[in-house]
């Protein structure tokens, strides 16, 4: 099937404005009659719940953490982009749009990206009004920095905790609506099923993580803002609770999963130290503004970094990409680091690491300046590694960080299941095959504050509110299904723990579907995952019962979904017989090792329809057209 993204036609500059006018509105007096269920309270979900509540809708918001403030958006460090052009350095909506399309390696929809660039300015204003303490210059104006490969300074930041501050802003807006009574918050609840009635999303089935109660909440529309899926690699920079579960359960009810193979591997993470490790810690890539990446020229060089003379160091990013140097985009920087390590020139435990050296910057700017810029990151690095990065270079290695793929949505952020809207990292829309730095925060808030309030009205205006009640047969069935599924997990009583399976899956994924993928490695993964899945369902040990706080059961459900989803990810990667952005197929590279796209055959969004476990998923395509940015080879030389 050919999917229709429903993008507005005509000049892109006015597309969103025209679309906003064309959409239907819900009468103010009628808004409270509509109930909207928002799953996830990160930047996208929190902003959406707050904004929809403020408009007068009856909102219920759900999160698995004990507070809406703890969603993993909180961990974003670097900043948020906006096309304000405050520094007068040539930025514009068009340039942000252009950079995002190009950065995404021409695999995103133009209209969505334009809208994102357009509303980026509103986001900054909104956050400032909420009391987000953005960095200011001496005169009191908002400060900007250049970030993640952008050649203009368009990134707004709040120390190294921009995500935290933006999330707390959204959380404060949400708290205000909770007090006003327009939003009801359900913390420590996890969505385990989507209730679809007559083809439309009408509710969710959740598990109360404290009491174990499984119940259905019905509404007139469901908004998923449940984040990304890179925990499929087990070790990633995501929080321990991040999972594909909400999305995957929606997929099982008919939603399409788009571009799952687009995963972002972040170049500046702290390398793994051992098997015991449960997660990887990211350090903001703003570090690359002042740090220089290098590896020893000699293979297997075990000398301490200080003993390696300048001429025996390979500043590989500066060598390969003279104009962008250490600021090359994430996928390029990550792959370059992997190449050094694959070439036996890696450093640290297991040789999986490269140096990020601040010695030159400290010499040039002084330690105090570096401390004022990155003090908290150096502190964090020291806590984890016990090394002082002012004295010895940091060791970094790439780690799974973000997923550009997600549920397929049209221009209205509505999935192929009517009434099911998907926002933020959970959808696939704007980042194409690779996300630029400081764009995730922008997208989450854009979707939540400035897109969904308009587009959901267009849907709601067409339906009758409250048509499905909690005693609907579909709700009962959903509760039975979820209960049965959980009981099955509890009854296996095998020998291996949930974490062991997750680790094994992660290993398969990282080795075969990680930074560099080949037909052979992907086929290997597609062969191994179902075997592991089968073992999981016959040999997993989940202690306790379903009627209590049971973290093993929660994790078991999430890992079970990863075991199905991982296979789809590998299949998508295998089918996409080209390299683009975060998806790198070793068969498709330029002579110098750059990603080689195949625009003739793969310039489309690949959205997968679930047909059942162990059955072949069906691919649906949405062709991508580029009218405003010409398809070109992405070059950062």
């Amino acid at each position, binding site marked *: 099937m050919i999917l229709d993204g429903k993008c507005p036609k005509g000049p892109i500059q006015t597309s969103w404005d025209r679309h906003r006018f064309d959409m239907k509105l819900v009468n103010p007096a009628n808004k409270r009659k509509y109930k909207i269920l928002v799953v996830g309270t990160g930047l996208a979900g929190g902003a959406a719940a707050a904004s929809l509540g403020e408009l007068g809708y009856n909102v219920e918001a759900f999160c698995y953490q004990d507070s809406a403030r703890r969603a993993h958006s909180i961990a974003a460090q670097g900043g948020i982009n906006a096309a304000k052009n405050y520094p007068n350095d040539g930025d514009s909506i068009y340039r942000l749009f252009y950079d995002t399309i190009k950065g995404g390696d021409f695999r995103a929809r133009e209209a969505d990206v334009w809208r994102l660039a357009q509303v980026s300015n509103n986001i900054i204003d909104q956050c400032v009004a909420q009391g987000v*303490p953005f960095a200011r210059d001496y005169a*009191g104006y*908002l400060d900007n920095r250049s970030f993640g490969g952008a050649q203009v300074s368009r990134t707004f930041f709040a*120390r190294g905790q921009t995500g935290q501050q933006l999330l*707390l802003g959204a959380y404060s807006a949400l708290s205000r609506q909770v007090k006003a009574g327009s939003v009801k918050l359900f913390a420590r609840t996890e969505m385990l099923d989507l209730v679809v009635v007559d083809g439309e999303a009408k509710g969710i089935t959740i598990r109360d993580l404290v009491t174990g109660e499984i119940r259905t909440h019905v509404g007139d529309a469901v908004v998923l803002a449940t984040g990304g899926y890179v925990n499929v690699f087990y070790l990633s*920079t995501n929080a321990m609770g991040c999972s594909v579960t909400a999305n995957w359960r929606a997929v099982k009810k008919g939603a399409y999963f788009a571009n799952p193979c687009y995963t972002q591997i972040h170049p500046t993470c702290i390398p793994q130290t051992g098997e015991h490790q449960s997660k990887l810690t990211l350090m903001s890539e703003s570090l690359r503004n002042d740090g220089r990446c290098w590896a020893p020229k000699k293979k297997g060089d075990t000398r301490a970094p200080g003993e390696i003379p300048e001429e025996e160091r390979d500043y590989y990013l500066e060598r390969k990409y003279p104009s962008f140097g250490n600021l090359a985009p994430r996928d390029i920087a990550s792959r370059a680091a992997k190449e050094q390590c694959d070439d036996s020139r890696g450093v640290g435990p297991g040789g999986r690491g490269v140096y990020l050296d601040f010695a030159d910057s400290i010499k040039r700017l002084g330690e105090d300046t570096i401390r004022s810029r990155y003090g908290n990151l150096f502190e964090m690095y020291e*806590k984890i590694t016990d090394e002082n990065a002012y004295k010895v270079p940091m060791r970094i290695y790439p780690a799974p960080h973000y997923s550009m793929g997600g549920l397929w949505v049209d221009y209205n952020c509505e999935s192929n299941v009517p009434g099911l809207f998907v926002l933020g990292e959970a959808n696939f829309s704007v980042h194409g095959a690779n996300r630029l730095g400081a764009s995730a925060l922008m997208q989450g808030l854009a979707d939540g504050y400035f897109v969904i309030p308009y587009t959901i009205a267009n849907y709601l205006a067409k339906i009758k509110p409250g048509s499905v009640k909690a005693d609907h047969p579909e709700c009962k069935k959903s509760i039975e299904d979820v209960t049965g599924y959980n009981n099955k997990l509890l009854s296996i009583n095998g020998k291996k723990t949930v974490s062991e399976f997750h680790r094994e899956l992660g290993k398969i994924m990282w080795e075969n579907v990680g930074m560099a993928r080949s037909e052979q490695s992907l086929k290997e993964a597609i062969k191994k995952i179902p075997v592991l899945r089968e073992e999981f369902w016959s040999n997993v040990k989940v202690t306790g019962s379903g009627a209590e706080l049971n973290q093993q059961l929660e994790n078991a459900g999430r890992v079970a979904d990863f075991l199905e989803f991982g296979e789809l990810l590998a299949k998508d990667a295998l089918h996409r017989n080209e390299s683009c952005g975060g998806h790198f197929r070793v068969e498709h590279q330029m002579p110098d090792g750059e990603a080689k796209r195949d625009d003739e055959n793969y310039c489309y969004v690949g959205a997968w329809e679930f047909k059942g476990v162990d059955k072949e998923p069906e691919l649906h395509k949405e062709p991508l057209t580029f009218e405003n940015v010409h398809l070109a080879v992405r070059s950062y030389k």
Partner: protein
Amino acid sequence: MNLTLHVWRQNGAKAPGKLEQYEAKNVSPDQSFLEMLDEVNEQLIKNGKEPIVFDHDCREGICGMCSQVINGVPHGGQERTTVCQLHMRSFSDGDTIYIEPWRALAFPILKDLIVDRSNLEKIMQAGGYTSCHTGGVADGNAILVPQPAAEYAMDAAECIGCGACVAACPNGSAMLYTSAKVAQLAVLPQGQAEAAQRVCDMTDAAQAAGFGNCSNHYECQAACPKGVSVKFIAKLNREYQKALFK
């Protein structure tokens, strides 16, 4: 290294709890404290026992989910460090470690090391925001914010809402948590319009939720993994006095 753990086990809010002893074997100094517990749990599961439940999520010290009192100090007493960022190299072979949940009237225990912190939410809902509408706000640069004010606000806004301040406070008071938000918004022009109402509403909510009163022990600041200063409590007190005369 090998360690002896005494961990608080409590099966539900109403059930009685007690400390139980476990052995953590072959712990690597590079492990984080939670990874050490993960391994203890793996062993418990394999032996058919109930694993220890504890709150955790981001494991990089920012989400505020982790909440354990280690050897009598919330987050273990290493300066500016959450439990998840505490590494085993700060312990030595043969150590005995006591692990307990946050304890305060306003934080009922749900299970083992997990407590219910929804009372902190009530404080925030009482006024921890500016009442701006989505859209319809001024340009970000329309109102200048002096750099010192922005820095001061950011210092306060570092709070991760973990509740260590309450757990450490001999009075079970949430004044540091409350003051961080009050101070952040009181120093920014965007928050000043509602400052008087906010400080009254938030402190009332804290009182109503069963948190104690501040009596200036300053245990909160010492336990805070983000080093939020009690100077913000002084700021809250100032704001409160201003509100009294409004």
